[in-house]
């Protein structure tokens, strides 16, 4: 697992199993979330949103540890991590 830059902290980190949601309409396809998820949960896809950006694909959701690194790094507020 890649290292995280510091501790997400208790309040931020989701506890149980996580559901990742990507709001396609917000995504600008920068791929930061794909490149920096410590567990490679997200990957590139060939799906294009209404603005013409490639949206990431959630390929290994069960590996997600709910660290919210993707959620906070995403410059467009397109990813949400929710506790189930």
């Amino acid at each position, binding site marked *: 697992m890649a290292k995280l830059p510091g501790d997400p902290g208790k309040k931020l980190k989701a506890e149980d199993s996580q559901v990742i949601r990507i709001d396609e309409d917000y995504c600008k396809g920068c791929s930061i979330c794909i490149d920096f998820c410590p567990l490679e949960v997200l990957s590139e896809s060939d799906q294009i949103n209404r603005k013409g950006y490639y949206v990431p694909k959630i390929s290994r959701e069960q590996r997600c540890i709910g660290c919210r690194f993707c959620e906070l790094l995403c410059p467009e*507020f397109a990813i949400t991590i929710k506790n189930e």
Partner: protein
Amino acid sequence: MKLSQTETPPEDCCEDSNHRLHKYLRQETLPTTFCVGCGCGTVLGAFAQAVDELSLPPEEIVMVTGIGCSSWIPSPYFKADTLHTTHGRALAFATGVKVMLPRMKVIVIAGDGDIAGIGGNHLIHAARRNIDLTVFMVNNWNYGMTGGQMSPTTPQGALTTTSPYHNVEPPLKAAELVAAAGANYVSRWTTYHVFPLAEAMQYAISKKGFSFVEIIAQCPVSYGKMVNMRSGSDFLNLYRDTSIRIEQARELSEEELVDKIVVGKLVERDAEEYVTKLYQVNSEQSAHKE
């Protein structure tokens, strides 16, 4: 899926989002107008996260900003009263707001050009006064909005549109300058360090006196085009690989720290704040006259 160039998103675009930080944002302005992979959006997120952790009602915040891409972080996206002022003058306006509305949290978010370049003198004196403002300086190492000119914080040796051979100047160490001038709290983080960054922003907002966080953030377009770093991730990788915690940096020489980004808390003190003293002296004077 083929997409025609003229297709516009429907009216209800983005309305079903349920991001936990959306409540702090003017949703109709999203997605942002920042370029793909720009760090400004991440700074906005870290700021919203900080406000959320503090349970600070946005009605108690006055945002003040200048001109530049980074100056668009509060306005129009963050849902609080905002004074979008002229280039370089955010701190002068913020000083006025704080003196007249001392109970409000007055928070400045603007760029390196705005705050340390054209507004550099305001910065020194606001820090010297130790006025109770919070300043988040988004340092993307250039004048992003106007096409990538060299700024006072551009690293030595970097190519920019106005230093096309390379920058011969050493960069201004803005955080160190503010610490030396007398601020109560100074730290530096990058957008890669988004957790400690959000925490530092939270701390800076609640700290009495002048607090300053220098946020190294990527400009993959205006800056990136000249140094061949065209994606946000290129910069985040650089920040991860070249940053060093201040505790470790203290053991190293100046030469060893060239090309390193020193992150962490530079200074914290509890010196008396300006507005309190100002009101005190005023009331003493009026009591004296009576």
